[in-house]
């Protein structure tokens, strides 16, 4: 009951601004009636998937999305302080955010209706249920985007520019204005909604299907918006949870938090995170000529040699090199710089095991970020056959090499350590395991830490099914061995002496 009351009041607040109502009318007219023919022409020029009619249909979704996003942005950003006051007065934050989102959904429905009416008047609608559902999904996704931006960006100019930027990217690089099968644009918010709405199969929706992906995007976006807005509306608690001072949990939270801050303030790692994947992966893709190269792969339990185009596979096989290099450097820098500080912290009473867990957590996070950055760059130029296995294998490689970096620091020092940190991944992954140089790794390369993980990467990248159990065992054994070595070395260098 209270929620409904708040929704009514919020809607009244919105409607009492005449500019809002004007925009609600203007945007559908401009997009659906005036701009649609020009956009349809542009789609044909740019090689869009479906040509004119589909684009004209989609303009309803674009209009509804834009309206919902901007409306939700102003709702959240302008009322944030008052909303917090409501929460301070006793209104549960979850109920307030629910009311805000329901208000937004109502506005989204109105925006969708306005856009659909404009579309119906201009061209008519062949499949009303599908187009209406698609338009609503557009509106819901942009409602969430508007809410998240509203919670994060208070300046209205910055906020609307940001939403507009996302919307322009989404529309002009979407599947109907450009080619629908580009890997780089599949992550755009309304990629699958657009294709489903105009009934154009993407052919990369997999078992989940285009409609499934569209619904995942819609529900996921609204859930994310709820979480973000609830977090920013919640009143700061005077009595937050605190672990018992000096307990394992207390020390772990403290040490990990400071480790993350320390990492964030290391600009070299941030620069490398951008530069290494871009240089390694994009350059390899750009400079590799077409041709045929033999690659030994495991298929249905037996080894087969396949002739593959190096121009096609090079970026996918370069990703593990970038990932291993970045993870090694992260492990090196994150532990090396703080060794003497850790020794003192241990003397002050921080448990060595807790300190080690905190350091390894930060290294693991850095390795995961390196993996995510490299895979994101790779996805723009290479499509793995088994994406899950490809990502998991690269992650295992990153964690393995992160541990190697942890070991390199204390053993070789800063300057030599950096050389070693570049050299080992280069020799192991770049030369020893690379299918660009040999059809399969030489015997000596099979004893290196990257062998198992890289075979898994190749299996995920270039084959349709998982056939590398042996490689998985080898990769896990390397990871476990390096983990034990890192624990022993850390204890040796950090643990207080006992006499």
């Amino acid at each position: 009951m209270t929620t409904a009351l708040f929704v009514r009041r919020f809607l009244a607040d919105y409607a009492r601004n005449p500019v809002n109502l004007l925009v609600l009318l203007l945007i559908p007219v401009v997009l659906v009636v005036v701009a649609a023919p020009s956009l349809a022409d542009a789609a044909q020029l740019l090689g869009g998937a479906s040509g004119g009619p589909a684009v004209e249909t989609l303009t309803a979704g674009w209009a509804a999305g834009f309206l919902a996003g901007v409306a939700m942005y102003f709702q959240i950003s302008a009322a944030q302080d008052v909303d917090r006051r409501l929460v301070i007065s006793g209104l549960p934050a979850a109920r307030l955010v629910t009311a805000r989102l329901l208000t937004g959904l109502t506005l989204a429905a109105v925006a969708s209706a306005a856009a659909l009416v404009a579309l119906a008047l201009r061209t008519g609608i062949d499949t009303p249920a599908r187009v209406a559902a698609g338009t609503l999904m557009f509106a819901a996704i942009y409602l969430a985007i508007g809410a998240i931006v509203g919670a994060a960006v208070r300046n209205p100019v910055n906020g609307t520019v940001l939403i507009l930027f996302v919307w322009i990217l989404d529309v002009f690089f979407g599947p109907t204005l450009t080619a629908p099968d580009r890997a780089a644009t599949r992550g755009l918010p309304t990629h699958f909604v657009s294709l489903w709405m105009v009934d154009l199969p993407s052919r990369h929706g997999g078992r989940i299907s285009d409609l499934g992906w569209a619904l995942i995007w819609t529900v996921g976006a609204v859930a994310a918006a709820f979480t973000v807005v609830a977090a920013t509306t919640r009143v700061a608690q005077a009595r937050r949870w605190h672990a018992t001072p000096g307990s394992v949990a207390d020390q772990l939270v403290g040490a990990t938090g400071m480790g993350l801050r320390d990492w964030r303030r290391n600009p070299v790692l941030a620069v490398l995170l951008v530069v290494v994947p871009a240089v390694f992966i994009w350059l390899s893709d750009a400079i590799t000529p077409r041709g045929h190269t033999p690659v030994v792969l495991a298929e249905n339990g037996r080894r087969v040699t396949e002739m593959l185009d190096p121009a096609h596979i090079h970026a996918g096989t370069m990703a593990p090199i970038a990932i291993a290099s970045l993870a090694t450097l992260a492990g090196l820098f994150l532990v090396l710089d703080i060794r003497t500080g850790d020794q003192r912290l241990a003397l002050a009473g921080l448990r060595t095991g807790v300190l080690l867990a905190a350091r390894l957590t930060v290294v693991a996070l850095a390795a995961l970020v390196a993996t995510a950055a490299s895979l994101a760059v790779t996805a723009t130029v290479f499509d793995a056959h088994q994406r899950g296995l490809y990502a998991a294998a690269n992650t295992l490689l990153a964690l393995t090499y992160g541990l190697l970096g942890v070991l390199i620091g204390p053993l070789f020092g800063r300057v030599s350590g950096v050389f070693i940190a570049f050299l080992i991944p280069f020799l192991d992954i770049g030369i020893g395991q690379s299918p660009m140089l040999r059809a399969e790794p030489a015997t000596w390369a099979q004893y290196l830490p990257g062998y198992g993980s890289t075979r898994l990467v190749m299996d995920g990248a270039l084959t349709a099914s998982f056939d590398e159990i042996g490689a998985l065992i080898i990769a896990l054994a390397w990871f476990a061995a390096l983990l034990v070595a890192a624990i022993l070395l850390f204890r040796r260098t950090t643990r207080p002496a006992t006499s």
Partner: protein
Amino acid sequence: MSTTPTIAAATAVTGEASTEPVLTAHGIEKSYRRGVWPLRRPRPVLRGVDLALHPGEVVGLVGENGSGKSTLMKILVGALAADAGTVTHHGRLGYRPQEPQVYGRLTCDEHFELFGHAYGISVADERSARRDLYAALGFERYAGTRADQLSGGTLAKLNLGLALLADPDLLLLDEPYAGFDWDTYQKFWTLVAQRRSAGRTVLIISHFVVDEDRFDRIVEVRDGQAVPR
């Protein structure tokens, strides 16, 4: 293991032998290996040090350069393992190393917060102690400054502050006022006097002859032994 009762004699002089020591070291020996293999030879630095520190006393630890003062202090706090001998202590221990062992990219505030977790003190106590230390040593305006951007003197204050944060029963300070200006030097001794009156024990490595009057007693590391001076 040496049993030379050098410190027992000294504590008897100060009249504190009757109280239970907060720290006791017996027969501490330590050698460093010097030279290039296979010609590496052990060079003894400490040859059976005995030391006892009692509540409420401020003890100076002096000796020539290379005599083993810092080595002894590192062994007392557990930063270095002795070749032989035992160290026992009661209560919380605060240690100020000679070189500031800090995290370059963390701020002063963040260091205090982190060491608060290490000492196991509550957030409220840590905040309160942090404020007091900023005021006492005069570096509050650097609370949000990263350690690698601090001047040498301010870094020395942070280094000392981390040892004092939990108001430890036993403070071991390795040349704590190196880098301090005169005003901070005076503030430092005020802090030490407060600790002493609260029953805390302080062991300070010092080179300054002018400080002699400030100590309850002075122990000299000479020929690998700790002897009263």
